[in-house]
């Protein structure tokens, strides 16, 4: 790539068509929406999963182990193809047998569902590690005063493990924002897909990939800012290392 100047046509990034800037921004907003949905769903699954793994009976534990191993092992693309296409196919087949009409599951819902399921498996492991790092006595004390398992979880275990969990959880959030690329498979216009469309249509690959990179980076910086605030709050009361 000899002379970079000759490749850069800034007009391509204009917000109004024929510039692609507006499209990229809309893609970014879509990505963030899906990421928030998927991440939240994953967090709920992860809390349940971690509790199941740590406190559940042998059957729950084995099932959770299967869930985290399988879901983490299988590439997301496979999961979404199976769940969205084969899954809705099967669902409609069953519904037809039962005499109920077709349902049309939107790609968006399926996408959020799949990202949530995937994130949930990773979140389970992050939370499990963090909960194990909480000194046993802290949890014992809570139980000794008659807190229900739910109370122990929400009042003591979760806040006490936050400092250990935040780095892992923030990694997962960043992964969630990029995993939205999966939804391209079901035809949803998130940032990665529109970047590829813009690049493919104009052949200005470097320009659009870098532009998307900058958008992702900005998202990361903003996320990091909030993560820092949360982490500082969570680490109150913990002696800092020197």
């Amino acid at each position, binding site marked *: 790539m000899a002379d970079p100047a000759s490749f850069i046509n800034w007009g391509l990034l204009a917000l109004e068509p024929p510039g692609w800037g507006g499209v990229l921004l809309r893609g970014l907003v879509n990505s963030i929406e899906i990421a928030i949905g998927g991440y939240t769903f994953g967090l709920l699954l992860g809390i349940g999963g971690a509790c199941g793994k740590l406190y559940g009976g042998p059957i729950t534990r084995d099932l959770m182990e299967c869930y985290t191993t399988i879901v983490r092992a299988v590439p997301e693309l496979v999961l979404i193809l199976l769940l969205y296409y084969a899954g809705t196919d099967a669902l409609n087949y069953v519904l037809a047998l039962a005499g109920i009409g077709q349902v049309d599951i939107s790609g968006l819902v399926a996408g959020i569902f799949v990202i949530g399921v995937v994130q949930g498996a*990773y979140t389970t492991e992050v939370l499990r590690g963090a909960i194990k790092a909480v000194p046993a006595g802290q949890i014992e004390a809570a139980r000794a005063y008659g807190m229900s398992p739910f109370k122990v979880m929400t009042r003591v275990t979760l806040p006490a493990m936050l400092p*250990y969990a935040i780095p892992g959880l923030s990694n997962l959030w960043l992964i969630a924002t990029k995993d939205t690329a999966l939804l391209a498979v079901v035809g949803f216009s998130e940032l990665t897909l529109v970047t590829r469309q813009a690049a493919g249509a104009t052949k200005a690959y470097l320009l659009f990939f870098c532009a*998307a990179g900058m958008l992702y*980076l900005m998202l990361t910086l903003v996320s990091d800012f909030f993560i820092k605030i949360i982490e500082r709050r969570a680490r109150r009361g913990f002696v800092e290392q020197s």
Partner: protein
Amino acid sequence: MAITPEDLPTRDSFFKPHRIVLLLILAALVFCIVWFMRWDWLPKYLPRLGYGILITLAMLFSTSILGFLLAVPLGLVQVTGPWPLKTLAKTFCTIVRGTPLLLQLWLLYYGLGSLFPQFPAIRQSFLWPYLRESWPYGVAALTISFAAYEGEVMRGAFAGVPAGELEAARAYGMSRWTVFRRIWLPRAIHRALPTLNGETVLQLKATPLVATITVIDVYSVISKVRQDTYITYEPLLLLALIYMCLTGILVIAFRYLENRIPTRGA
């Protein structure tokens, strides 16, 4: 409840009734898949698949080991380093974690990599045969990305080691290096193992990106099958199975490391 080494699953205790039921369900599932789906393409692609698995493994191991070696200083410096190093490490992690891996790979291979041929000195050097290949760029990109994510994890793990234990080490005259090597690092790694496990599995699934720079891993072999035949589900199921086996091995290995030191949980 205390988990002592005796509680860990042994070969006898592995087959409990509910596990046998699970295995039976699994067997039935496998039977259905083999019986009702199309597998006639398999023999033709078998040698390629084997080769692809080897490449995937090579990529995974080399990049996660190299990446981890980089991650330790990255995490440590962020917890305790002087501010210029701290800022540097922080910036590195933020930028790498903040941008898609595909973009990094792309910039390395098509950006940086296409600059090299323009310098005769590089063309002449012993490095050129490697720089001309594509896998070094894949290894570099994956290593950098793993190091950045792992650096973040190690930062949390280093910060999480109880201050008192480090103080005890210092109080007995351990040098900073010895404190690090004997107390801080092992405690941090042990604490980070569950997260590390997850990140390694993520790394396994990031390897397919190297296909875009012509390194043929198992994922791209499966993609080729799908493109050649337009069969959707069967190759994907095989891929899922392969990845599941690889992940299973990773999980077992990490669980073993974790359980070497029993922890008292509540």
